[in-house]
């Protein structure tokens, strides 16, 4: 019952060890990319570091459940986003439920109104906004919306990947992204021109 020949068992163990080491190396190679996303999902560097360590500890334990040939970066981020929610991040009840009148052209139009029409040929967004403005505007976007923006815009994931990572329908990814980016632009407009 379940007996293996004396020769087969060491070979199986050696193969498993080899697969595990390969998995661990591939996961570690992706750590920089995973961190960039993690850092913007949480408020502080310390939180991001803790979250990374929890994620990798769990990934290394659960390595057998990863299907080789599928997207390892998305798999790691699925663990990470689940842990982030489990860690006590309250599932916010979409706090920004009032209608958002601003459209996608809002920031451009605000800059134009303020007499600083962006020069399309040599557009210099960085002359009007600093890195701190972006970080602060992003952190003002409610979690549910920010998660999607961070995965798609910083993590460079497709809508389908983001849906899988967050375990939400793709239509929800699109609507949160749409709304989240509008909130982000409203925040950026406050920084750029002091618009309310």
């Amino acid at each position, binding site marked *: 019952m379940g007996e293996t020949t004396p020769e087969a068992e060491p070979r199986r163990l050696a193969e498993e060890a080899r697969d595990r080491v390969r998995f661990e190396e591939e996961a570690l190679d992706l*750590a920089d990319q995973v961190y960039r996303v993690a850092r913007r999902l949480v408020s502080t560097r310390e939180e991001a570091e803790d979250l990374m360590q929890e994620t990798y500890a769990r990934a290394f334990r659960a390595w057998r459940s990863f299907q080789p040939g599928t997207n390892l970066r998305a798999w790691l981020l699925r663990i990470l986003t689940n842990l982030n929610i489990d860690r006590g991040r309250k599932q916010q009840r979409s706090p920004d439920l009032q209608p958002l009148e601003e459209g996608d052209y809002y920031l451009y139009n605000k800059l134009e109104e303020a007499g600083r029409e962006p020069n399309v040929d040599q557009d210099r967004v960085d002359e009007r906004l600093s890195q701190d403005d972006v970080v602060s505007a992003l952190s003002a976007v409610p979690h549910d919306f920010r998660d999607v923006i961070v995965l798609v815009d910083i993590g460079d994931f497709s809508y389908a990947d983001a849906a899988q990572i967050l375990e939400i329908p793709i239509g929800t990814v699109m609507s949160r992204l749409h709304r989240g980016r509008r909130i982000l632009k409203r925040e950026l407009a406050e920084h750029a021109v002091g618009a309310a």
Partner: protein
Amino acid sequence: MPTAVDPCDKCEEMLQPFLDRELSNAERDEAQSHLDECGYCRKRYRFEDALRRFVRQAAVEEMPPDLKQKLADLRTPLF
């Protein structure tokens, strides 16, 4: 009764999926042909594209060097 859709409103709706490369070919062609003839939307698309790149660049914070070693230490010992 059919209501006329303002082509610039339609174009604004397609801005996000256009830049995310998530439009179908037909939708992309539709947006592109409007952009070819509409400076109002074209300027705003270019601005959005530049803004996206800036946000992406500004939001990136590299991993602290010692964290990678901490993660490597979490590996299962071979022996």
